[in-house]
C-alpha cells in the first residue's frame, strides 16, 4: 500500500515536470528574432601605449636560465652558498665543538625547471667564482672566472641514461624528485674543486654554463622559489686528539644565499616599441576604448588582441615563453596594480624567432570591462615568469600606423526581445 502511494506520487510529480524543448522548424515555427553575431576589427581603439622595465630583476626571479645560442644570447647561472660554521659538535651529546679544518667533498644539487629535451649532449659545466658576486655583478665581471677550466663537466644525457641516473664513478646523479616532479641533478666535487676556505667561511661561488651539440638552454629553480641550488658538505674537523683530523661522515647541507643569471648581450635600451619579457622584466600597457554600442549593448563572444612583432624574440627554441594579458585595478601608468585573477587573465605563447602577427585571446578581459563599466579599459602585458630568462618580444606601438595593435571583436547584438 505504501509502495503504491509512493509510485502514485512519483508518477504525479513526473507528470508535473515540463518538457518544452523542441527542435526548431525555422523560420516558419521559430520566433522572428535571431541572434545577430558581428565580427569587427577595432583598428584605432588601442592607444596611449608604452613600455616600462624593471618590475622584477633577475636575482628576484623564480627561475634562472643558462643558454648557449651563438649569435643570440649567452646566459650563465651564478650562485653563492651559505657559510659553514667555524666548528661543529662531533656528537649530539658533546658540549665542546671541534673546529673545521678542511673539506672532504661536496655535492651540489640543482633543480631543473625546464630542459631542452631536443638538444643532444646537453652538458653542465661548473666554474668556481668569487663569493663576492651580488646583484651588481655583470656578465663582464665574471668573464675571467668562466674563461678557465671548469671544475666539473657533466653530460646530462649520459647521466640520465645510467642505471637509476647514478654515475658510481664520479658520484653524480640525476633523477625526478618524487615530491616536486622536477629533475634534480647532483654533482660531486672533491676537496680541490670545493675547498674549505676559512677566509670565505666555507661559502662557495659557483657558475654554471650549459652546452650541447647545438644551441641549447636550461632553466634552474631559484632560491626565490624555495628550490635554489644547495650544497652538501662532507667536512673534516680537528679531533683535538693530537694532530689527527676526523672526517665527518654525515653531510652538512647548505642552501644558497644569492643566485642570479648573467647574460650577454644585455637587454636593448627602451625604444618606441612595446617590449614584454626580458630581464629585468618589461611590461607594456595599452589603453583601449571600446565603442559604447559594443560595451553597453552587446555580448562579447570572442576578443583577440593583434600585435605585430617589430623584431622576433631571440634565444633558443626552448626559450619560448608565455605572455599574460591582465587588466588593472586602477590606471596609474607603470605602477598600475594588476588584477591577478585567473578567470580574468588571458595568455599566449611567444615562440622564439617567429615574426607572425601575435594573437592574444582577451575575451575574458573584454567581457570583464563590458560587465563593469567602472573598470579601466587598460591592458597590461607581461611575461608569465618575469625576469626568468633574457628572451623578450617587441611589438609595434599604436604610433606605427600600418602595424599598430588592434582588437578583433566578435560580439552578439542585443536580441530583439518583446517582439511577437
Amino acid at each position: 500500500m505504501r509502495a503504491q502511494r509512493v509510485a502514485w506520487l512519483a508518477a504525479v510529480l513526473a507528470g508535473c515536470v515540463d518538457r518544452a524543448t523542441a527542435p526548431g522548424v525555422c523560420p516558419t515555427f521559430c520566433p522572428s528574432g535571431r541572434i545577430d553575431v558581428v565580427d569587427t576589427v577595432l583598428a584605432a581603439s588601442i592607444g596611449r601605449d608604452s613600455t616600462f622595465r624593471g618590475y622584477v630583476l633577475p636575482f628576484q626571479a623564480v627561475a634562472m636560465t643558462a643558454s648557449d645560442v651563438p649569435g643570440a644570447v649567452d646566459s650563465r647561472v651564478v650562485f653563492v652558498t651559505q657559510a659553514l660554521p667555524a666548528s661543529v659538535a662531533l656528537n649530539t651529546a658533546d658540549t665542546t665543538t671541534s673546529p673545521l679544518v678542511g673539506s672532504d667533498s661536496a655535492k651540489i644539487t640543482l633543480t631543473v625547471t625546464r630542459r631542452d629535451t631536443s638538444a643532444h649532449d646537453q652538458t653542465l659545466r661548473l666554474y668556481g667564482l668569487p663569493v663576492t658576486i651580488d646583484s651588481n655583478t655583470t656578465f663582464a665581471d665574471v668573464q675571467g672566472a668562466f674563461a678557465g677550466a671548469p671544475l666539473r663537466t657533466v653530460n646530462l644525457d649520459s647521466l640520465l641514461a645510467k642505471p637509476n641516473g647514478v654515475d658510481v664513478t664520479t658520484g653524480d646523479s640525476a633523477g625526478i624528485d618524487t615530491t616536486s616532479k622536477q629533475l634534480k641533478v647532483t654533482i660531486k666535487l672533491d676537496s680541490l674543486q670545493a675547498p674549505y676556505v676559512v677566509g670565505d667561511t666555507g661559502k662557495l661561488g659557483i657558475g654554471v654554463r650549459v652546452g650541447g651539440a647545438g644551441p641549447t638552454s636550461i632553466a634552474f629553480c631559484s632560491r626565490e622559489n624555495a628550490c635554489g641550488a644547495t650544497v652538501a658538505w662532507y667536512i673534516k674537523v680537528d679531533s683535538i686528539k693530537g694532530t689527527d683530523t676526523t672526517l665527518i661522515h654525515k653531510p652538512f647541507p647548505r642552501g644558497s644565499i644569492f643566485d642570479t643569471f648573467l647574460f650577454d648581450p644585455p637587454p636593448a635600451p627602451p625604444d618606441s616599441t612595446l617590449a614584454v619579457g626580458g630581464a629585468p622584466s618589461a611590461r607594456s600597457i595599452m589603453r583601449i576604448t571600446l565603442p559604447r554600442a559594443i560595451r553597453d549593448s552587446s555580448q562579447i563572444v570572442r576578443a583577440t588582441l593583434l600585435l605585430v612583432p617589430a623584431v622576433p624574440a631571440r634565444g633558443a627554441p626552448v626559450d619560448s615563453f608565455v605572455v599574460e594579458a591582465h587588466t588593472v585595478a586602477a590606471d596609474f601608468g607603470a605602477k598600475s596594480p594588476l588584477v591577478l585573477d585567473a578567470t580574468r587573465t588571458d595568455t599566449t605563447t611567444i615562440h622564439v624567432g617567429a615574426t607572425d602577427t601575435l594573437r592574444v585571446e582577451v575575451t575574458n578581459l573584454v567581457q570583464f570591462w563590458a560587465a563593469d563599466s567602472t573598470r579601466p579599459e587598460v591592458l597590461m602585458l607581461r611575461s608569465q615568469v618575469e625576469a626568468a630568462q633574457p628572451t623578450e618580444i617587441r611589438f609595434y606601438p599604436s604610433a606605427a600606423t600600418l602595424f599598430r595593435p588592434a582588437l578583433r571583436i566578435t560580439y552578439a547584438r542585443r536580441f530583439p526581445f518583446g517582439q511577437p
Partner: protein
Amino acid sequence: MSGSTVIRVAIMAAVIPALTGGAMPLAAQDSQFGIRGLGTPGRFETVRVRSSGGAFGPFDALSPLTEASLGDLQGLAATAMGGTSYRDVDAAAGATTSLRATRFPVMVLAGPVFGRLVLSGGFTTYLDRTWDVTLRDSLLVRGTMLPYVDELSSDGGVTDLRFAAAWRVSRRLALGAAVHVLSGSTREAAARTFDDTTYHALKQSDETRYDGLGVSGSLLIDPLPELRLSLFARSDNRLRARLGDVVTAQTDLPNTFGGGLRWAPSPSVRLAGTVTRRTWADAGPGAFNTVNWSAGLEVGAGFSPLRVGVRGGQLPFGPGATAATEVGFAAGTGRAFARGRAIVDGSLEHLRRTGAGLSERVWSFLLGFTVRP
C-alpha cells in the same frame, strides 16, 4: 472520506493554484503554431466544458466564456482546474518530438450579492507563450564556418483577469457583462553555444510584460423550457509588450462573436453546440480570423454525469496562406461529494492540429475542483 474533508481538500485545490498563480504557468495549452504569432489562445472553459468539447461553454456558470450564465448561480461557488498535456510534434522533415506541459489555466470565484445580481472574478489564460526551440546551424566568422546551437525560449503568457456581473432579468432572460484586464509576462532567453569553445557561449534574457483591456457581454434566452440560446460578444483593444518602460510592440486584439444552443430533451440528457468567430487577422501578418465549433452531450443528472464532445476550427497563427486547423474529441465525467457541495471533474481530450509543414497530436488529462460551500 467524510464530506467535510472532501470540501476542505477541494477548497485547497481551488485556492492554492490561485494563490500561487504568479509563479505557476497559467497557460492552457502550448502549440508550435503560436511561436511565430502572439501565442496560443487559451480556452475559457472549465473541465466540465472541456469534457464536452467546449459545447457547453456558454451555459456553464463557472466557465469564463460568457457572463450571462452566472445568473443561474444560486450560491457562492469556486472552481479551479489543472491539466497535463502530452504533445507530439511532427515536422515536415519527419522528426517527431514529444513534449509535456502542466498548467493551471482557470480559476473562478462567483456568487450572488444582491438578489439576482451575481458577481464573479477570476483568471484564465488568454495567450500562452511558453516554448523552447533549439536550432543547429553555422555561420562564417573570421574566414571559417562556425557550427553552433541556438536555444530560444519563452516562458509565460498573458492572463485574462475577469470581473463579471450577471443579472437574471426574468425566467427566460439573463444578461451579463465583464471587464477583462489582460496582464502577464514572459521570461525570454536566447542562447548560443559554439562548437569551437574559443568563442564563448552567449546567453541573453529579458522579461517582457504585457497589458491590454477588453469588455464582453452576453445574454441567455430560453425560448422553450428545454431550449436555451446564448449569444456573446467580446472586444479586446490591443496587447502592449514592454521591456522595462519601453513599448516594444503593440498588437491589435480580436473581437469575438459567438452563439450556442442547448437542448435538454429530458432532465438527464443535454445536447449543446457552440460556434465562435474571432477576428485574429487584426493582429497583423501571419494571423487569420478563426471560426471554432463544438458539439457535446451530457448524460446523467445525478452526481456522476458522463460527457462527450467534439470540436474543430482554426488556429489564429501559422505559416502559409490559410490557417492551421484543429479537430479533437473529449470525454469525461465528474463526481459530486457532500451532497453536491464539492465536485471533482476529470477529462481526457485529444486534439490534432495540422498546418503547413507541421502537425501536432495532443493528449490532455484535466482535473477540476469545484466547491459550493
